[in-house]
């Protein structure tokens, strides 16, 4: 058992997901944190730690004066943008295991659709902390968006393994199927066909069409992390942190990541998943459901392979054979994922992993003992108590 297995996620909370929240990011943060505390049965006065992303625009000092939190013993931030999203909960759990805090709130709040859009072309140096140091060596050639940077890596994978954009339509359709009955999802009750996908405009040819991309959305998502012992006395069934890990391999970059030797290998996720298995003593066959970061459809292929859910180069067949469907061997992104639920920088998918462990997901999978979450450079295995 890993040291983090004595820690659990005790509360989850989110705002609505929308294209225009109509309020400040600080308000979204305060609302989702309060909602997560209510879910756990805790009060702001119980909180003594807070963690978010380096690139979140809201501030813990602002949030404690909104929520009336008496003081923080632990305040931290995780780098690498969405790739680091799972790390926010991993580091919160580490702080609790080390005795640095008792109740840590993790949050991400963004008006990413109404105030700024990650899909816009970058032309200037971003704020530090995002981990995209190589952006200066891509933008001068017109490689200026996350979609472009991911496509440059994915195209080599697709070339080597014969995957086409038409194949990727299966991934878009899969995610949409999972969101059809999810009222929180952008894809609620909106059917999507392969033809719709193929008719959507190119974003990056020949890799990504519009319907290969995640949503751009406004919203907030929060978690309450505390000791397993304390979580057992709270309102919800604890989601144990069976394992949690981060891996930042040489010479990676958070997204403008072009200098590692073999683009068909996802070294970040391979190294992270290996640690998850070592910490927990379980393997891919012991995981019943997976939430894998799907900012762009082809990344799902490399996640599945990096975790060992299927062999290298076989992920497209693995999906086509139905393994990631709700009735498949490894139901994946059962809420619709970032492509069809919303994009709260990955954390809304971690909330779905918690719901699958609790048994409260809209598309609840029977017999879930362990749920995997991956955001690429960070990830977790959650377990039933």
């Amino acid at each position, binding site marked *: 058992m890993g040291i983090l297995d004595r820690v659990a996620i005790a509360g989850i909370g989110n705002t609505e997901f929308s294209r225009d929240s109509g309020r400040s990011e600080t308000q979204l943060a305060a609302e989702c944190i309060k909602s997560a505390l209510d879910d756990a049965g805790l009060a702001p006065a119980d909180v003594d730690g807070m963690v978010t992303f380096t690139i979140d625009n809201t501030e813990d000092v602002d949030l404690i004066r909104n929520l009336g939190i008496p003081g923080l013993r632990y305040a931290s931030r995780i780098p690498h943008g969405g790739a680091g999203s799972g790390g926010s909960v991993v580091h919160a759990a580490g702080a609790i295991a080390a005795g640095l805090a008792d109740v840590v709130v993790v949050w991400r709040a963004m008006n990413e659709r109404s105030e700024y859009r990650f*899909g*816009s*072309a970058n*032309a*200037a*140096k971003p704020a530090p902390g995002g981990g995209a140091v*190589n*952006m*200066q*060596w*891509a*933008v*001068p*050639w*017109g*490689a*200026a*968006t996350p*979609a*472009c940077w991911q*496509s*440059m*890596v994915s*195209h*080599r994978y697709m*070339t*080597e393994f014969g995957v086409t954009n038409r194949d990727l339509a299966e991934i878009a359709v899969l995610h949409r199927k999972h969101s059809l009955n999810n009222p929180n999802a952008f894809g609620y009750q909106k059917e999507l066909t392969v033809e719709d996908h193929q008719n959507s*405009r*190119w*974003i*990056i*040819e*020949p*890799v990504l069409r*519009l319907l290969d991309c995640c949503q751009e959305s406004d919203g907030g998502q929060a978690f309450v992390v505390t000791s397993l012992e304390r979580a057992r006395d709270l309102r919800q069934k604890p989601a144990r942190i069976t394992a949690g890990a981060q891996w930042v391999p*040489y*010479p990676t970059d958070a997204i403008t990541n*072009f*200098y590692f030797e073999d*683009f068909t290998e996802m070294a970040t996720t391979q190294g992270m998943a290996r640690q998850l298995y070592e910490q927990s003593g379980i393997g891919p066959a012991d995981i019943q459901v997976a939430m894998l970061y799907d900012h762009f459809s082809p990344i799902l292929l490399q996640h599945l392979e990096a975790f060992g859910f299927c062999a290298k180069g076989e992920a497209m067949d693995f999906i086509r054979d139905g393994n990631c469907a709700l009735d498949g061997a490894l139901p994946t992104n059962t809420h619709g994922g970032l492509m069809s639920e919303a994009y709260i920088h990955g954390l809304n998918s971690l909330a779905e992993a918690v719901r699958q462990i609790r048994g409260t997901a809209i598309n609840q999978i029977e017999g879930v003992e362990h749920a995997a979450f991956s955001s690429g450079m960070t990830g977790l295995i959650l377990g039933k108590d």
Partner: protein
Amino acid sequence: MNLRPAPWIERDGIPFWEAAKRGELVAQSCKDCGVLRSPPRPMCPDCHSVANEFRVLSGRGTVYTWVIPRYPPIPAYGEGNIVAVINLDEGVRVVSNLREIEYDDVTADMRVEVFFEDAEQDYKIPVFRPATA
């Protein structure tokens, strides 16, 4: 067509862009152990020396991956701008553009050679085209 935008330059990358103005494609190399590195950085990850120099490369390599950004349109680069990752013969890698070839004719690992396009503020940008024999 309008000139390409001037590059985005940070301190450790200045010699690369100055060399490009002279029509040279260079890579940084460690002055002590000689290992090449791309992109530039102030310390050698092998021997930790901070002494470095920029070495002129052959300008020849192979196409590792390539795409066309279609949306959002970035008019400064023109319609159908091909972005590519090039494995240079000296063993380092650069992001660049492919020119003088139709997208459908690009193949993985095809041989390419460097040339330079004018940019604003008298900068020149290294780009690649199919290699001549």
